[in-house]
């Protein structure tokens, strides 16, 4: 999550702006939530403003987005995060194919498949 934030906002150290979310359900790990580009594209299809599109990954048009949050609700894997400062949906863009999260993960729990 730190790596994701740093990849998108250089110099920013936080987990809150990350597009991947690791759920801590102590004593277990609840799950790793990130966009796993699905065939159905629920977020794109359900977006009432047509603010989301597909271009190798989900792309947001901020000028169309009304921050309604429908994309968050319809994603079956919890892959849409809300940016805490600007309120826009924050969706994995694969770091232009370089997958910062997978590169950083020390245990290989996150890998590109």
């Amino acid at each position, binding site marked *: 999550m730190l790596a994701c934030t740093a990849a998108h906002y250089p*110099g920013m150290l936080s987990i809150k702006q990350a597009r991947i979310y690791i759920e801590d359900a102590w004593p277990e790990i609840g799950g790793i939530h990130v966009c796993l580009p699905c065939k159905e594209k629920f977020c794109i299809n359900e977006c009432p403003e047509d603010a989301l599109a597909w271009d190798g990954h989900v792309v947001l048009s901020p000028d169309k987005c009304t921050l309604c949050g429908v994309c968050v609700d319809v994603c079956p894997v919890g892959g849409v995060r809300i940016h805490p400062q600007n309120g826009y949906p924050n969706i994995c863009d694969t770091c232009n194919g370089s997958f910062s999260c997978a590169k950083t993960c020390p245990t290989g729990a996150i890998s590109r498949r």
Partner: protein
Amino acid sequence: MVWNGYAGKILEVDLTSGAIESVALDRDLAEKYIGGKGFGIHTIFNRLPAGCGPLSKENILVFATGPLTGTSVPASGRMELCTKSPATGLWLDSNAGGSFGPELKYAGYDAVIITGASPSPVMLLIENDNVSLIPADDYWGMDTLETHRLLKDAYSIDHKIACIGKSGELLSPLANVLTEFRSFGRGGGGAVMGSKKLKAIIVNGSGSVSASEVAEYSRMVRESVNELANSPDTGSAKAEFGTNVILSLMDYTGIHPTKNFHRSTLDEKPIDEHDVRNYYTRDRACFACTIRCSKIARVKDGPFKGAFTEGPEYETIWSFGAHCGNTDIASIIEAEHLCDAYGLDAVSVGNVIGFLMDCFERGLISVADTSGIELTWGNSTAIVEAVHLIGRREGPGQRWSLGVRQLEEIIPGARGLGAQVKGLELPAYDPRASKGMALAYATSDRGGCHLRSWPIAEEIMNQSNPLGLHTTEFKPEIVKGQQDLHCLVNCSGLCLFAAFTLSLEQIAPLFKSLTGIDSFGNAANLLLAGERVNNLVRLFNLREGMTAEMDTLPERFKTEPLPDGPCRGETVDVSSMVSTYYKIRGWTEDGKPTPELLERLDIPFNIEA
């Protein structure tokens, strides 16, 4: 002022009046005292009325992060709790990992200073700029695990929590503060929180901290991650075995004490790291940590079936295990789980139980004094029952929870049997076996503690030039050097385990590129900050009534030779090492920092001579 690394604000909460104030962090304070323990001692030395009772409303509780806390520096999720200890009446700082510290930084605060006491149970809720005190009557009396669960249900799973359990509420000097299932351990910080009627601190933040020189910082982080991964210790051993990795080594070298420090072997096969590993079900890591030494252990069958804990750590395996003559790992897991739930310190509680077993076996106490519990060596069920009594402070548990130093006075004939320094129970290294550890215990600022310095690293684990266990030569130098380094680490937010692998020359550029503060780029300067903080803590301890005579070990380690194991026949007298240590520190023969030293360290305070 623009801050890098730091959040730039300190939150002040007065529980008596309910006043909450956010004040700007002082640049000079940050440069000289770094953070964590440094912020704690600076605040407490200046503001705590001299001689105040640890459980009085005048005592101050400081939760302080360091500049590295919450950043992507590996193993940087740690923070400090600083206060005056109810167990020793002296300085206390406890370091804990998990994710509470980073969350506090993201909420915008480097530290929380808590003063006064609330008339009724309260919780402190911190959500960025919205900070409030809310009634906690519904949670009072609840154990820590239940408190965590219900608070996360009520707020969110991303709200991070630090809370006390029943033992803290009952003001037990053995009480811990639990945070995200890890502990601010030793010395009774939980009781201070209990005396203030503060059940929990809940924090959720949406901010971030920033790095100053981004490219250099990222490069140094990558280098540190690689260094940790390449080390046999942090790269593989700790990931596989957790802290228990040193069990066999400590046994083999005779450092591992058994049966209340009377022996160093057991008749049964001692527990080793492979035995403990069989109980691990998964790894866990603190925030941003690539070492992942934390494990979840579960008991699958037998009388303790279903027991689980985050751990058990090396110290717990010793305190409820070898120290009590017990080799049943399942019972240790249950005991550690109970300690977490009650909010107890597992090292001290195990030490107390071993001490009681010693008294029981010698006939100093009988079943009439123990609510019928047969406290014989190795009785695992009795250990678990004793933890319940200590946790609830019920029946004899009321007295047991006072700790070994007071029990030595209470139980007739028990004087001299305890293993404690300045009122804090000793952890899992025999001072007769490791002369360096003996000095480390004697001179530690919070009493019998293995984390202020750990000279065993230089005595036997330094592969190129081991000093050896039994010589006293160079031990004062090692202890002083490690104390200053560990103190710096406790100021920084970094984990000691990372600092064992990374050199200070690697850590300094991290500080510098993160914060942009030039003086942090110099390793010697950082070490000087560690020394400064240690000396201010010394002044505090002297002011609160500590004397040089207290820098010693129990008499028994001088007169009672180890009867068995590789260190058979060894005793230890720390007095000559302590006087050398004073000289190296620049202290007088009474253990007081000289005015010249204070001037060199730029400490503008002194105490009445």
